[in-house]
């Protein structure tokens, strides 16, 4: 049976080291299979978070050969097995043990985002009607599985630690899903600019690159939000145009 060496980070917040484990590999195996095999045979105390093994729960996020990946979706056949495969915890969040990090910061950030605020129901049955073309755009954002790989790869969080000033790609998608929703009436642009730090994004597109759901985070969420912020804060002609239209509208009614 063919074998491969996995260089896995072992340790906790106080410190740790990489340790090598050799395990057999067979056709169709993913990194999570190898981790489970190592856990069962060589390192029973290896801590690793997982759940669905189908790329839908977002639990098994880690860094494989230096890139944020879901371990359950990373096939060994995609990796060069002639060299050790490094497996580390995601680096943007505090390490708990081995491959497990504390991602609770994300849940605290989410609570601070203004909630969905629909307009009053306008259909005869007391509900709403939406057209498919109105919701196509936000449906893409609903695919997010909250694996936080985008948060991990974003250098604003990962390297510059702007946790208090920047909400990260995951929550920019979340804001985009709310802000572009055809029923929503809430205005989140001031927060986006002031406290959620959209201006920190410098469009590296690393978040898009690592997204296991292939959400076009930068092109379809972050840049359109940046443009909406430009509408309100950096475009004097647009501001004047809007003001004139509003005046014309109020004059007509």
């Amino acid at each position, binding site marked *: 049976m063919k074998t491969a060496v996995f260089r896995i980070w072992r340790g906790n*917040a106080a410190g740790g080291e990489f340790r090598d484990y050799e395990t057999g590999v067979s056709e169709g195996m993913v990194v999570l299979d190898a981790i489970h095999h190592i856990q069962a045979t060589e390192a029973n105390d290896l801590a690793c978070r997982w759940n669905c093994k189908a790329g839908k729960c977002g639990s098994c996020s880690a*860094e494989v*050969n*230096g*890139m*944020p990946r879901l371990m359950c979706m990373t096939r060994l056949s995609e990796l*060069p097995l002639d060299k050790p495969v*490094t497996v*580390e915890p995601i*680096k*943007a*969040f*505090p*390490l708990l043990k081995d491959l497990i990090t504390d991602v*609770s*910061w994300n849940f*605290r*950030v989410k609570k*601070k985002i203004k909630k969905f605020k629909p307009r009053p129901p306008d259909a005869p049955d007391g509900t709403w009607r939406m*057209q498919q*073309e*109105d919701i196509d755009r936000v449906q893409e954002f609903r695919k997010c599985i909250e694996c936080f790989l985008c948060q991990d*790869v974003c*250098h*604003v969080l*990962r*390297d*510059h*630690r*702007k*946790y*208090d000033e920047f909400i990260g790609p995951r929550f920019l998608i979340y804001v985009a899903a709310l*802000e572009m*929703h*055809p029923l*929503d009436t809430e205005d989140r642009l001031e927060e986006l600019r002031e406290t959620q*730090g959209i*201006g*920190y*994004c*410098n*469009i*590296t*597109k*690393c978040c898009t*690159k*690592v997204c296991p759901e292939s959400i076009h985070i*930068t*092109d379809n969420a972050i*840049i*359109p939000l*940046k*443009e*909406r912020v*430009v*509408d309100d*804060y*950096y*475009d004097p*002609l647009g501001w004047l145009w809007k003001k004139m239209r509003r005046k014309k509208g109020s004059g007509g009614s």
Partner: protein
Amino acid sequence: MSAESTLSRRSFGQTMRADVWWAQPLVVFLGLGAFVVYSTWAALQGRNYYFGPYLSPFYSPEIFGPSPHSWFGAKPVWWPAWLIFSPSLLVLWAPGGFRLTCYYYRGAYYKAFWADPPACTVGEPRSTYLGERSFPLIMQNMHRYFLYLALLFILVLAHDVWKALWFVDPATGRTSFGMGVGTLVLAVNVVLLGGYTFGCHSLRHLIGGFLDQFSKSPACYRGYACVSCLNRRHMLWAWMSLFWVAFSDVYVRLCALGAWHDLRFF
């Protein structure tokens, strides 16, 4: 709301990536660097930028200048003597600004020229970071104003292609309809620049992306869909148009110098 990572900050270039992560920023650095050097050199030449009905896109529109393509005649008398003059310098700042503030190029040159970051998950040289929230990078928000100018340039360059279909016979002085390789070079230039400009993220927003309910504005929705279609390959359009606009200048310049012969189809 701190979530300090327990891992120490990485030094410049430090990464666990096993692939050739440096290849892409290096290619961008060389590609954009070569373009900036060549376009600056070409813009400062002030000669050999037209050949018969062909005008180099680096010099179009020629507002003032010595060629027959000039809109308002030769160099104006009020032009300061100490200031270098080239017809290109009057116009090249606009498409240059459009590319400089383009969302695609921003991400590309922040990585390739400023290592901010050098590549995904690769350590950066600086610990401070301001992003696009403060001067000078907050000026990137002017992108839509450069877009308006770039759209005008597409019209001008399309008109240049039309003019490149009319050749003057040096013997008789008569103008006749025709087509040469140069005509095709300039036509491809407009198509590629159009693909790049009409796929702009700002245009995508301005034409319909600002709406929450597309169904109430079907025309805006169609426009949004068209721009989105081009926007999906924005990077490809950006590079193809960048290469071709430089090649168009090279073609016209070498024809003007007599190094290349312009083949006439009819």
